[in-house]
Each structure stands twice: as structure tokens, then as C-alpha cells.
């Protein structure tokens, strides 16, 4: 099964730009350590055959939300929902079941700083 781990983080302004909140809260040198830990964990997942794809996202002020209603397309600036935490990145993993995907997500360094939504990738023809 494939699961997507959606990493939600708080954003804060820094020098006129939104950045992941922990960069502001922890300071630059600790934020570098977090980034290093994230890379190391990505490599670990890769070497163990769990990692399919993972990317951080650029700040949410670059986001635009698209919807079509009654044949008319409209766009809204910013992420879909107004919440404190925004989608900050994702990792697509291969896992045996939901509990294994949860275990993988729980060890992501960012799990300590934000929250991670784990969702199975829909398989055509499968129920649920």
C-alpha cells in the first residue's frame, strides 16, 4: 500500500516572507539541524525501500486554490482552509499497512514540530 504523509506546519513571517514557524522559533542554527535530520531520515527511508517521493512545499502565500462551480472557475489566494497550520510538505511512502505508515510518520523529525496527516493512496477498484 502507498500512503501520503502530509506535513502540516505553522508559518511565521521572517524578513517579509512566510517561513515554517520552527525556523523563527528555534533560530537558524537549530533549524539547520532539523533540516539535516529531515534529509537523513529521507535517506534512511530511501535505503529501506519506504520512500517513493517527498518534497517540501514553498510557503503558503504562494498557494492558490482552484475550484469550478456551475462550469465557472474561480480561484482563491492562499491555502484551502484558514488554519494556523498549513501544508508544508509531503512524503509518499510504501508501507505494509496503516500502522506501519503511522510508525514511519512518527519518526519524521517534523512530527515533533508540526503534525502529520497520514492518508492511504486510493487504489482504483478497492473499497474504502
Amino acid at each position, binding site marked *: *500500500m502507498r500512503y501520503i504523509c502530509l506535513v502540516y506546519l505553522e508559518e511565521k513571517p521572517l524578513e517579509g516572507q512566510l517561513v515554517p514557524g520552527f525556523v523563527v522559533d528555534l533560530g537558524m542554527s537549530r533549524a539547520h539541524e532539523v533540516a539535516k*535530520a529531515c534529509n*537523513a531520515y529521507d535517506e*534512511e527511508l530511501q535505503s*529501506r*525501500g*519506504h520512500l517513493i517521493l517527498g518534497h517540501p512545499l514553498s510557503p503558503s502565500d504562494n498557494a492558490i486554490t482552484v475550484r469550478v462551480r456551475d462550469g465557472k472557475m474561480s480561484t482563491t489566494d492562499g491555502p484551502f482552509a484558514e488554519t494556523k497550520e498549513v501544508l508544508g510538505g509531503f512524503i509518499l511512502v510504501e508501507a*505494509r*499497512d*496503516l*500502522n*506501519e505508515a*503511522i*510508525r514511519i510518520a512518527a519518526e519524521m523529525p517534523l512530527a515533533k514540530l508540526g503534525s502529520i496527516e497520514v492518508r*492511504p493512496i486510493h487504489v482504483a477498484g478497492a473499497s*474504502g
Partner: protein
Amino acid sequence: MTALEVAYRTHSRRVLATLIRVLGNFDTAEEALHDAFAAAAQSWPREGEPANPHAWLVAVGRFKAIDRFRRRARLERALPELSAQLELEGEAAVSHSDEEIADDELRLIFTCCHPALSPDARIALTLREVAGLTTEEIARAFLAPVPTIAQRIVRAKARLREETSPFRAPSLSEIAGRIETVLHVIYLIFNEGYSASGGAQLVRFELSREAIRLGRLVVGLLDEPEAVGLLALMLLHEARRETRTTASGEIVLLEDQDRAKWDRPQIAEGVALVERALESRRFGAYTLQAAIAAIHAEAPRASDTDWGQIVSFYDVLARVEPSPVVLLNRAVALGMRDGPAAGLEAVEAVLATGALDDYPFGHSARAEMCRRLGRVEDARVSYERALRVARQEPERRFLERSIARL
């Protein structure tokens, strides 16, 4: 299936059980299991399967876990004592003989059936960690949302970490104190796989088979008559699986089942086990139920059933476990032995307690006695009452057919 998939099916459950003992933690052991099979995928096609795959997988899994501890210790400046301890324990901790491996599995069942966990949590954890089912399969079998089951498992593991700190396998005396719970979990797993309620057929079949495997494991390692009785009970029920429903899922009553299709070798094994448990004189409810199932299984035709003996076993069972359902079954057996008038009186005495108001087969038992006495209207009233409380579709259709036949 590839050779490695076959190896996974054959070895993964037992390798995990040993790794949980060696590494002392569910999550670490699951990671190690994954890594061991990843390593096998690399080296086995090249170098061939090792002579002792279990030992190979455990050794590799353990090594990878130590390796990961070390790397994380460097990264997070934590856990150095853990990897040091693991290295000290060394290769001696890795099980080799079949007996030691079975020991690990049994230990794991008892850990999953820890008294601090709720019955639901024990079942979910046992199914995933011992039986090797995925979270999704467990959710399908219990018709529950996948995240609900996933959380139940996460919480159960967390609770076990609190309860057994540091993580420790149960001692022999604790095992003796938990045997009842373990047998109950195995029985629930079996029933879940055997009952007519929904869910994917294949998973259900696998649940029953796994329950029987666990039952055999317990019987093989502990001298416990009730474990023998439970295994007998499961085998005797399983022997009739094919004939209990039609191809379209309709209920077929015991008296209407095609006895030629019952699995005779399985029945013979069940009967021998019942005899062994009865001889011990320390038997309980499982053995008594198995004894009743054995009498049914041994009757060549429904009309040959020895109802006298069945009533005697129900009399003993009602003393050991005086539950309303046991009392009802006893009343029905009495009706078969002494005729519908005596049966009706006994069934009505049980129903008068009110404990079975929501149990469709209490009302349908009364209906059946009335029908045999020619009291068609009374029978109809009771069948309709049963229909009002029936929850499962096959039950409802069965009751509707019974009403139509009146």
C-alpha cells in the same frame, strides 16, 4: 507468488515474535523485520536461501536495529546505552530450535493479551502482531473504520510500554494467570472468522485458520485441558464450515446440513482431543461445548443424534457457565429428547428471565416448539418477534422463510 513472498508468509510472524523478545519493543522489531526482508530480497536471489532462514532473518534484523540505534545516537545524541545493551546480549539471544521459536510466539500472544488492555485492544494487537494481519484486514473483518483500528493498536502498544517498563516478556506464573484471557481472545478470533456476519470471506476464513493455529501452539506448550478443549471445539466447528450456509449465504440448520461434506479427519482429531480433555478431569466450558459438538459431529444422520447425552453435557455446562444462551440451548436439547411440550416449557422458563429479549434465536426456539405442537399462531408471533430483533441479513431471511413455511 515470488519465492520471497512465500518466505515472508512462512517466516515473518515467527521472526517478528523473536525480534520483539530480542529488541524489547514492537516498533523497533517491526522495523527490523522490514529491514531483514529487504536484505533477503537483495542477497537470497544471488546466494540462495540460507539453511536456517529464521536464524538468518533474526540475526540480520537485530544487526540492522543496532546499526540504526547507533546512527540515531550520533544524530540525536541519545539511546547509546540501548545499543550497547543489545550488543552485550549478543547472538545468544537469537532463538534457533523450533521449540524456542514457538516459545517466542507464545510469549508474544501472552504479551498482547496483557490484562491492562481492553478486550478489543487485545484482539486487534494479537491479530496484527501474532497473526500478521494488516490493519486494513483487521478493519475489514470487524467492519470498523481503518483509522479506528490503527489507533487502537497504537494506544495498546503505548499502554504496554507503560505497563512493562522496561519492556519485559511475561513470566511463567504470569502466563498461568493469563491463560483464560488468551483462550478467550483465540475463541473470539475464531468466532469472528466463523460467524455469518459480513466482511470479506477470505479474511474470515484466514481468521478461523489462524485461531486454530494459535490454539495448537498453546496446546503444544502448556498442559492445560481447557486449551485442548478449545482446540477441539474450533476443529469440530470448522469441520462443518462449508455446509453451514448455501452458496448464496443462506443459513442451513444443523439438522439440514449435508453430513457427507463434513471434514471427517478434522472431526476425528477434534473428538480425540475432547476425550483427552475430559480424561483430565480439570476441564471447563470449552471442553463441554466441544463434547456437545462432538456428539453432533458423530451422528451419521440428524435423527441419530444422542440428545440424552447432549442434555447431560448441557446440565454440567449450565453449572460451569450459567449464561442465558447456554440455558436456552439446554432447553432446546431437552425438547429434542423429551418432546416439544417439555421443550416449550423449558424455553419459556428461560425467556421469562428477560435476558434474551433481544436475542432472535430465543424467540425462534419458542416458535419452533410451538410449530411442532401445531400451535401455528403462537409460532408466528414468536417468529415475528425474532424478526424484529434480528440484525443480520441472513438471519432475517432465515426467519422470513420460517414464517412462510408455517
